[in-house]
């Protein structure tokens, strides 16, 4: 394995090393904002190309591993590239690149007024490094380290600027994340005590030998730790509490990536470490509750960002549903749905950021006239919103269709209940986004409760007439800006790009579904993974 020929996969560690190197560079360049932005963006583009190359290599199937430092597995650290991890890497890098460009454009438009943004770029790169590390990790402890890297970076990003609201939100987030990490670490300690290894391939080979009771304990501990990170009910309370206060690009990238890393870890646990769907029934119940409780929370919200945070947790339920179903159809649909959800949820949060800029608030009670003021913005909201609601022919519909088919194939009262719950959740999602559409975009701003002067001025063309008095008092942070500063071209362009990626997921659904189905097949046969890391399908014998 050490003398393996040089292939795309040999460069897998660079997907982690490059962003960290870039973070150091960006930190040195913190006084030169433009250079810093250029460095960050180019590092991310290089990483994306590298990951696309890896994806191209595993597109036809196959699992490869890289051994770091030449230590033979299971003693050394290995990184594993298979269809699933490469796919997740590429999707996450596309999203993080788009959000970074959005944030940079926002920074360029705003100048230096928004506080210590010089730490944004380094922290962002470290976040990307952590996410890549978690996706590539071939052993549990490296997965833990990956989680910690991304979490620490996310603490910094979430409390950016250190305002009262952000510190308050950050407290909940940090404490919950630390608690989940400690639980994960406890689980690792237990697993090491029981099995004597932390290498995932080695674990997969050896875990079946220990007693079923111990297996269940370890299984549940891992699921609880990952469940907090993935925001599965009842461990999801922290998410809608902490996400909305962060700056729009930060919320967007968190919504896209962080919970999905948790879902990724759950999928690995369920397919590689503890295959056989032993906990399928409890997972199904939790999936159903995640969907329902999340979406009912979303219905009650008036703030777009909070509403989106609730739909985010609600749709994690769909992913858990697919994992719990556990057949190839369900798992394949889950993989497709993860990609769809990352892209769509991130674009919606970016749009929410734009709405907040344009209208001075993201509270739907105070919004109105946006369809008239900015048709492009409403289009950018409309497409991902319909996508999220699962309207055909969008990718949300296709993903849900796959999940429902998976559930139907599984059969049984529980699976059918879950199918019904998922359809109900889709309807309620549609209701929440339709409410935002009706209020923020469709109705007249005059009908809103205490609308921002920005909306009234724009809606009446010149800003003259009855609203002169209101317009003279700039009530919001952005009201002293011209129209171009309200909606910078770069931010619009990046949101549009991400919406287009979402549409591309629909257009290329055929090959993508084929790919995710094949990946699901690979995931369900552990021997691929074990063989790739350890060289034999029996595992390492002591």
């Amino acid at each position, binding site marked *: 394995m050490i003398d393996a020929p040089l292939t795309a996969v040999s460069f897998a560690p660079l997907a982690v090393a490059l962003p960290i190197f870039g973070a150091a560079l960006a930190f040195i360049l913190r006084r030169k904002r433009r250079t810093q932005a250029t460095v960050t963006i180019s590092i991310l583009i290089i990483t994306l190309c590298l990951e696309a190359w890896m994806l191209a290599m595993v597109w036809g199937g196959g699992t490869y591993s890289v051994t770091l430092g030449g230590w033979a597995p299971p003693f050394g650290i290995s990184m594993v590239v298979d269809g699933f991890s490469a796919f997740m890497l590429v999707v996450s890098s596309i999203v993080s690149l788009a959000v970074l460009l959005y944030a940079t454009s926002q920074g360029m438009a705003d100048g230096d007024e928004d506080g210590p943004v010089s730490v944004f770029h380094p922290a962002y790169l470290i976040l990307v490094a952590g996410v890549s590390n978690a996706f590539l990790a071939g052993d549990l402890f490296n997965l833990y380290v990956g989680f910690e890297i991304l979490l620490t970076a996310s603490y910094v990003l979430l409390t950016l600027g250190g305002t009262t609201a952000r510190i308050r939100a950050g407290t909940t987030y940090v404490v919950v994340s630390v608690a989940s990490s*400690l639980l994960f670490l406890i689980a690792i300690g237990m697993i090491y005590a029981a099995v004597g290894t932390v290498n995932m391939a080695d674990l997969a080979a050896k875990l079946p030998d220990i007693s079923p009771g111990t297996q269940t304990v370890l299984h549940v501990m891992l699921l609880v730790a990952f469940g907090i990170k993935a925001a599965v009910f009842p461990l999801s309370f922290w998410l809608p509490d902490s996400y909305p206060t962060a700056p729009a690009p930060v919320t967007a990238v968190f919504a896209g990536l962080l919970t999905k890393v948790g879902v990724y870890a759950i999928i690995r646990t369920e397919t590689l470490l503890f295959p056989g769907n032993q906990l399928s029934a409890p997972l199904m119940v939790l999936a159903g509750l995640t969907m329902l409780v999340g979406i009912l929370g979303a219905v009650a919200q008036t703030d777009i960002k909070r509403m989106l945070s609730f739909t985010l947790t609600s749709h994690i339920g769909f992913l858990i549903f697919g994992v719990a179903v556990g057949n190839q159809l369900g798992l394949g649909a889950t993989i497709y749905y993860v990609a769809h959800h990352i892209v769509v949820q991130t674009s919606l949060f970016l749009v929410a950021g734009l709405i907040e800029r344009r209208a001075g608030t993201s509270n739907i009670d105070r919004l109105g006239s946006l369809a008239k003021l900015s048709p492009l913005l409403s289009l950018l909201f409309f497409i991902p919103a319909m996508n999220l609601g699962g309207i055909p022919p969008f990718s949300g519909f296709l993903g849900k269709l796959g999940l429902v088919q998976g559930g139907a194939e599984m059969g049984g009262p529980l699976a059918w209940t879950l199918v019904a719950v998922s359809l109900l959740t889709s309807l309620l999602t549609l209701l929440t986004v339709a409410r935002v559409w009706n209020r923020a975009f469709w109705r007249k701003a005059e009908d809103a409760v205490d609308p921002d002067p920005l909306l009234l001025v724009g809606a009446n063309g010149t800003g003259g007439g009855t609203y002169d008095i209101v317009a003279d008092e700039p009530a919001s942070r952005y009201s002293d800006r011209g129209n171009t500063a309200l909606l910078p071209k770069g931010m619009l362009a990046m949101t549009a790009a991400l919406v287009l990626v979402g549409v591309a997921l629909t257009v290329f659904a055929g090959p993508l579904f084929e790919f995710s189905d094949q990946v699901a097949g690979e995931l369900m046969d552990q021997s691929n993974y074990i063989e790739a890391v350890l060289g034999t399908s029996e595992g390492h014998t002591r």
Partner: protein
Amino acid sequence: MSTNITLLIVMGVLFAVGFYLLLERSLTRVLLGIVVLGNGVNLLLLSAGGRRGQAPLYEESLAAEDYTDPLPQALILTAIVITFAVTAFMLAMIYRSWVISRADVVTDDLEDLRVSQQSTFDFEEDSPVPEDTTEFDGDVDLDLVPVKKPKGKGPRA
């Protein structure tokens, strides 16, 4: 695998104290809880390595099981560094919270309170539709209206 019972008891105490402190409202205590818990987890990792043996330096005469397992110690080292970073960050956050609001307690989310107290009546969606405000008022040609005039006040009234 044999374990050290004293270490286990200490670990249990650390976990109990840590989780208790974690549930406090004062951030400083939460931080202490995290530190204590972190040490409890480190002890757990240490016990996971099995019983004590010779230093893990290769020696021909020694059988494999006589060495101390070095891996948990490497894991602990990493865990300590991570806890250290998190502690530093939390201290900075507590200090910031103190500077801003002269308090280190976790406050309730205002938006949460607002949502929980909002009325179930939504003005826009739940208010009765006024009868007389049709937009076609005035320009409706009465001759073209179907002869439902007599009972026209029925459903809408």
